[in-house]
């Protein structure tokens, strides 16, 4: 693989990860926490209505997890393409 081709392939995989992770980012916050809040509020999680919980707790926890998943995926990807040095 030439350098240019390698860089292109790396970038393509990176974009794929980013798109998947950002869809989750969007679904938990704008989806579960805002647009579908009322529907989710019919379910309960302990004393929390589920939509309210996503808006004030759940989405933040998912955000943290998303970044660490991205860190892991990218460290692996860097190694695969030899960009980790």
């Amino acid at each position, binding site marked *: 693989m030439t350098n240019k081709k390698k*860089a292109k392939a*790396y*970038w393509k995989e*990176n974009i794929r990860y*980013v798109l998947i*992770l*950002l869809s989750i*980012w969007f679904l938990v*916050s*704008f989806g579960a*926490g*805002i*647009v579908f*809040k009322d529907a989710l*509020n019919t379910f309960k*999680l*302990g*004393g*929390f*209505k589920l939509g*309210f*919980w996503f*808006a*004030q*707790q759940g*989405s*933040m*926890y998912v*955000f*943290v997890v*998303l*970044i*660490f998943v*991205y*860190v892991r995926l*990218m*460290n692996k990807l*860097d190694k695969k393409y*030899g*960009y*980790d*040095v």
Partner: protein
Amino acid sequence: MMYSLFVSGIGVQNWTYILVGITFALYIGIAIWSRAGSTKEFYVAGGGVSPLANGMATAADWMSAASFISMAGIISFAGYDGAVYLMGWTGGYVLLALLLAPYLRKFGKFTVPDFIGDRYYSKTARIVAVFCALLVSFTYVAGQMRGVGIVFSRFLEVDINTGVIIGMLIVLFYAVLGGMKGITYTQVAQYCVLIFAFMVPAIFISIQMTGNPIPQLGFGGELVDGSGTYLLDKLDGLSTELGFAEYTEGSKSLIDVFAITLALMVGTAGLPHVIVRFFTVKRVKDARKSAGIALLLIVLLYSTAPAVAVFARTNMIETVSNQPYDKVPEWFKKWETTGLIAFNDKNNDGLIQYVADKQNNELVVDRDIMVLANPEIANLPDWVIALVAAGGLAAALSTAAGLLLVISASVSHDLIKKIINPKISEKGELIAARLSAVGAVCVAGYFGINPPGFVAAVVALAFGLAAASFFPAIILGIFYKKMNKEGAIAGMVIGTITMLLYMIKYKLGWFDAVVPDKSEWWFGISPEGFGAIAMMLNFIVSIIIMKFTPEPPEDVQDIVENIRIPSGAGQATH
């Protein structure tokens, strides 16, 4: 005598002096230890900060007086709607980690205007970026100095202005001496102080009310009184009884909640004092990792805040609603003298009627009290109350210092070194950087003492502006190789101006005799949420203009390909 000494201990006042004194001595000690000797140390702390230290510093930099003092209070009055701040101010870090931080680190310069100026091969672009950076940072820093003054005046009983000046002197000392290096390590200490100060009262109160030491779980738990009622159900009931909206429902429209959350997320990712923190780590992978650590440390406080909001709101309603005024607890009278609680017995029955209906409501409570007075309302020990003062100061000072550094770097590096006098020596630039920091502290102090009438609009404005100016320009610069200077400049200028005009018309009301009613908002979106629209406008304008103007030169397109690859991120250079 002995007895009263034993019971009252040394008093809140003395505890506050001791804790604030110790923390200030710590910050000054760190500043002396980490003096900056070169411009590189001054702007990016030498570029060798570990991901953990950078994560802690970013978290302290990020969490301002507003996060520490006001946010839980705002949420306790807004209920569900408070989620816009919780999601907005944390979700932005996902964008930062996935879309900005790694590439800007690879690019390896000192400031955000550096990136804009080089990527868009244009002095005009750099100047527009400097202007935006100064506008955003000054609007933001004025609020921080005011926050320092308020904490001083409430806890140490000095005049607000004296408080602002003491705060200025401290920040001046470590920002001017240490630059980014001094700021980074004081921020690490400040994070520890502020998170401890926020968590301790929250844990105490959570145990008191729900028996659960983890506030995040406690506020979804059952009350400790054995009734088997969930705390949130009880608060919903109390709220509707008094005529307020149900706490877990909120009252803003869906589109506005959506727009504000988006504007705050994108604005967070576009704030120069946050972005610049990722220039201080060694490698691209460290930039990603430290964004994750920063968010984890931020979420620790942000996930506690809504719990504190629920505890404080329930406690407050139960303590005052329909209680005789002459039997109110001591804290009520104490905060009444500061004007933060006001009671007006409209129907002369001697009872406090706290209701949603403005005609009959007799009690006005300032939202800042919810965090500041919370430990007193819950009868916590004196040292916990004093701790809140030290925490509030740590939050305000760390954010102010980070902003001042952006301002001084914009002047000494982007204006003087890159535009006015490129031949300036390293030593000369370092002196210029220190002098601009001094100048910036004085201007910030001036605004702290004479706050402009639009302070309320300030934070929303800063985020709206960051969203409308930097975010699209940086994203397009990384992900759209063919984006050229004409497109980026037009986008930034039009985004910023639209945002300013909307804010002036609908928030400040300068165009009309009164602030226009919310029925006139475009698409039903408030000025706080308009950054989302201005950002999209910036993207659209940039892309349309780009289609009709020449492609960027070959070497610029090569830069873009280069920053997409993480390896070989050299040290930050000018």
